């Protein structure tokens, strides 16, 4: 599978409309700065400014998109200024606008704008609404920087920038200790991944003398296989941290402590898919490393199973969706790990997922809005009658995520499973099988969520009398996203539109239509198999949960359920292996520092002090003993003189 020859990477310099591409980032960034600096003075109109900057960015994004379509070479680079130049290291602050980043720009600003609008209503009664919009704007700016940077360093700026925005937004209700802790956890686990990304950058510089995409990708052929594999694995570590993939998945469900729009935008639609973006962006590197691709696939497969299993056991509506996100991103990792035509499939799933998962989260937010912030699905039931729009849009998202044709999830998940089966050797069967089982499990837990929330008898807490539908500002966004969930997949997959568009980025790998590829199993057979699994999952869930469920969590009957409820012991593992030894080490070192090192220093001082206290005793105050000492000294001097003179 090694790429025979390196990709010829040619970026043309930006001109005309595209030379203003920096505005995309500058507008939301400016919005964030203005909202933060003006403080309470901007409380009245802050949310409007927040929406406006992202909205304008979206319009600009569309404009640039169509400009790019009209160009011959669709990879446009825009160098803004020299960021660092030291010795032979030079890196520009620059943007790369190519088909891949164009797609991401539209996703980020488009979904971002919808969620901004939704938040106007959702955060209406929150005194910190202006601050919320400032952070959201900051996030959009950082995320755009991430996908638009034209070097790994530029990407790294955005990478940690979105981490910061994510931290701020998870800890938005900072007075809740759980929120603060969850935010910190997210930041730290992201940092673990960032270390990998940073080390990959160091290796790239030491090997190729540059960290810009252009130099790196055209230099892949000159790198040894070992180096490429090392780089790919380190990049993967970074991707795992940001995308909540195994073994760094534990932060993502906790991140649901933040307001629901944040979960929708950052922890479902955009930021957590940055890892997929990174791997897709670095495809020339991954293509050159068989091991790297295999590991990416394995991580994706493991994570998608983990996400599904835990998703089945959770009762918190947002956490179920969070684990579903973990698992869906697992699919994307699997796809980009497979390489070749699957890159486009991965990106397609990323886009459709952006629509339906954001829609699902907004629906969950709408449910919570009407149910006094209740999140336990055991306490819902029968809500379809009271919240028709929410139920309808949520239902569309639900059908999309489990992959019912012709909704968008079908068009994106199905090709991934096909590609997985097509992987040569036994690994193809393994990954394909896991993806298939995952599809069934997804159908099961999503159906459980759907049934328990919207159908059956109400199991509400006593204080809720009349759940209500959300205001139009919120439902509009949900409706638009639902439309996207229905149509996006079909439109983008139609005549391989997305794959052809992305073709230049993946070096011609995605040009073939699925029909032209020789399949191990016929495509239709795979599709049928997937549908069988999905329908089985749906049926099972309907049968079990048709009558509703107990309003409290029941004791777990099997080991698997217990493990799934404990997040497969990932938190326990982290605590036992990293946190507690770390805390113990810190405490022990404080002791060592105070008693050991400082003790040594102070001990030395004490020894000198004690010694001089002893010596002090020689000063008896008796003049005659001093005289005797002087006499002795005189004798010594004379004796020494005699010895020297005579000796």
């Amino acid at each position: 599978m090694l790429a025979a020859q390196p990709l010829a990477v040619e970026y043309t310099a930006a001109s005309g409309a595209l030379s203003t591409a920096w505005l995309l980032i500058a507008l939301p960034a400016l919005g964030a700065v203005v909202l933060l600096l003006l403080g309470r003075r901007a409380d009245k109109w802050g949310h409007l400014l927040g929406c406006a900057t992202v909205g304008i960015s979206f319009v600009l994004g569309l404009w640039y998109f169509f400009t790019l379509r009209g160009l011959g070479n669709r990879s446009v680079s825009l160098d803004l200024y020299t960021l660092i130049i030291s010795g032979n290291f030079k890196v520009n602050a620059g943007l790369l606008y190519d088909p891949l980043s164009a797609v991401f720009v539209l996703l980020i600003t488009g979904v971002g704008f919808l969620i901004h609008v939704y938040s106007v209503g959702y955060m209406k009664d929150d005194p910190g609404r202006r601050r919320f919009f400032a952070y959201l704007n900051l996030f959009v700016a950082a995320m755009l920087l991430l996908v638009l940077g034209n070097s790994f360093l530029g990407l790294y700026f955005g990478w940690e920038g979105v981490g910061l925005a994510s931290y701020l937004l998870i800890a938005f209700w900072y007075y809740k200790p759980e929120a603060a802790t969850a935010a910190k956890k997210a930041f730290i686990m992201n940092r673990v991944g960032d270390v990998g990304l940073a080390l990959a950058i160091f290796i790239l510089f030491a090997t190729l003398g540059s960290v810009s995409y252009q130099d790196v990708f055209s230099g892949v052929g000159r790198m040894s296989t070992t180096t490429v594999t090392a780089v790919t694995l380190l990049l993967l570590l970074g991707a795992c941290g940001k995308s909540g993939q195994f073994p760094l998945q534990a932060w993502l469900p906790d991140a649901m402590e933040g307001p629901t729009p944040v979960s929708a935008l950052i922890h479902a639609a955009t930021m957590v898919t940055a890892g997929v973006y990174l791997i897709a962006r670095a495809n020339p590197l991954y293509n050159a490393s068989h091991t790297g691709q295999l590991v990416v696939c394995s991580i994706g497969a493991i994570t998608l199973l983990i996400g599904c299993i835990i998703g089945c056991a959770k009762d918190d509506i947002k956490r179920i969706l969070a684990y579903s996100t973990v698992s869906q991103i697992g699919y994307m990792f699997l796809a980009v790990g497979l390489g070749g035509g699957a890159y486009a499939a991965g990106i397609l799933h990323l886009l459709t997922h952006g629509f339906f998962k954001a829609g699902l989260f907004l629906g969950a937010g709408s449910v919570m809005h009407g149910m006094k912030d209740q999140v336990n699905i055991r306490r819902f039931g029968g809500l379809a009658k009271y919240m028709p729009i929410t139920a309808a849009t949520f239902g569309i998202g639900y059908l999309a995520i489990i992959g019912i044709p012709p909704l968008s999830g079908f068009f994106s998940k199905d090709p991934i499973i096909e590609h997985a089966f097509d992987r040569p050797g036994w690994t193809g069967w393994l990954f394909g099988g896991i993806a298939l089982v995952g599809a069934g499990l997804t159908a099961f837990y999503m159906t459980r969520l759907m049934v328990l929330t919207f159908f059956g008898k109400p199991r509400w807490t006593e204080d809720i009398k009349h759940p209500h539908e959300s205001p139009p500002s919120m439902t509009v966004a949900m409706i638009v996203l639902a439309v996207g969930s229905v149509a996006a997949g079909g439109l983008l997959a139609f005549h391989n539109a997305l794959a052809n568009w992305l073709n230049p980025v993946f070096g011609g790998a995605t040009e073939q239509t699925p029909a032209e590829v020789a399949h191990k199993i016929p495509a239709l057979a795979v599709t049928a198999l997937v549908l069988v699994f999905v329908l089985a999952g749906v049926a099972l869930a309907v049968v079990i949960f048709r009558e509703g469920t107990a309003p409290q969590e029941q004791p777990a009957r099997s080991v698997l359920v217990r493990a799934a409820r404990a997040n497969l012991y990932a938190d326990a593992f982290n605590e036992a292996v990293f946190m507690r030894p770390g805390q113990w080490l810190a405490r022990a070192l404080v002791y060592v520092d105070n008693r050991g090192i400082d003790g040594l220093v102070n001990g030395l001082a004490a020894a000198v002090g004690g010694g001089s206290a002893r010596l002090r005793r020689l000063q008896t105050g008796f003049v005659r003993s001093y005289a005797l000492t002087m006499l002795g000294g005189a004798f010594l001097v004379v004796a020494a003189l005699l010895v020297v003179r005579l000796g």
Partner: protein
Amino acid sequence: MNTSSFPWLIVLTVLPLVGALAVACLPPAAEALAKRLTLAWTLLVLVVTAAIALGFDVNAKRFQYVTSYPWISQFGIRFGFGVDGIALVMIVLIAVLMPVVILASWHDGRTGTRSVKTFFALMLALESTMIGTFVSTDTFLFYVFFEVMLVPMYFLIGSFGGARRQYAAVKFFLYSLVGGLFMLASVIGLYVVSSNAGHPSFAFSDLAKLNIDPGVQKWLFLGFFIAFAIKAPLFPFHTWLPDAGAAAPIGAAVLLVGVMDKVGTFGFLRYCLPLFPDASAWFAPVVVVLAVIGIIYGALLAMGQTDMRRLVAYTSIAHFGFIALGIFAFTTQGGTGAVLYMVNHGLSTGALFLVVGFLIYRRGSSNIADFGGAAKVVPWIAGVFFISGLSSLALPGTNSFVSEFLVLLGSWANQPVATVIATAGMILAALYILLMYQRTMQGKLNPDLPEMNDLSRREAVVIAPMIVLILALGFFPKPVIDVIDPAVKATMQDAGKSDPVPTANSGGRK
């Protein structure tokens, strides 16, 4: 401008001292006048420094504004002054920090055992000696400034400090003095070596041309190294710093950690590497190990602290580990990153100390447990606290990131293992900062918190320039790097080191 023979650097060194004398001569009752005069004087010094910086030609030869007058001609000791890019950024840092610190210390002189005007006079005297240390090019003169610098700081800690001020002041003084004496021995040793070579001199430019026997180099290197390692401070010579940092008045703590300690790392670059290239290479593994231990050890200890000021002091130990790693990686990027780190650390830790000072002023305690949920009552302070913290944990977009990145990037080729461990230190950095922020600002509001006012106008003026510089240097560090880079290149040439060539380009395979 710098071709003229006007002794700008002498003026710059003496100017604050004149101010110190003027402030000291004021009547003790004229507190407000003493404060205002000091502030005005530091601003004047800032203007002069800015003029010098503007006149500095990046592309011209390394040392500029060179002046030299005989002092003790029997031993060839001269008043030799001159700046290269490294020294220039440091004196600019001093000049920028001074007015900020003075304004931040507006109410600090009153709690001491001496009069308010003494506090401000000592601050000005400290500025004078610090500038002198960085601009002197005569080794003996450097030594004199290096030691004299201790005196005002000793009195600042001992007379105006917190609870354990006497202990901390004496500890600080003795530690530095011991190191200084080792250095004195080496300075004299250098003189002897240069005499034996037929040209007795203390001037850096003469000494750098010497070819010293490698065996002798090791001993002379050790003398300098111990002095600088204590000053910097490197593990395990660090225990004076938390005590001094916690006991010093906030303004003095900023200068102590932000500027004075940089004399140590500055000394590594200016004296250790060019004068003793063989010994530096020989000792590099040891220094790198100490640096890496410092990074991890400082971070872990910072996590274990209950006092904010001690915490910040321990984070500095971790940061100094990064600086030392960059210097002893012997690459342009590592060295440039290290110098930039010296500047950035002055800004970020300075800002952190200042905000901690704001909090202590309100709460009367620096204990982390005495806060909690404070962001609710003082959102602006929380905001600047957070940004300073981000700078300390080296988030991209803040100044420290660029320097930390350059240090690690430059270290990778020559010290891969150390770089991996140091990079992991980034995680710990995030932990200690966010832990402190969470415990003081987030979570439930501590019911014991007194009525606290948010950022006052004076405090806003104090912290605003720091925040602006933190962000500006985070996105646009090139002007500073351009000044530093040539000097670092020259240093590496003196030390006989050349940058590693990208392996793929040299045809080498990993």
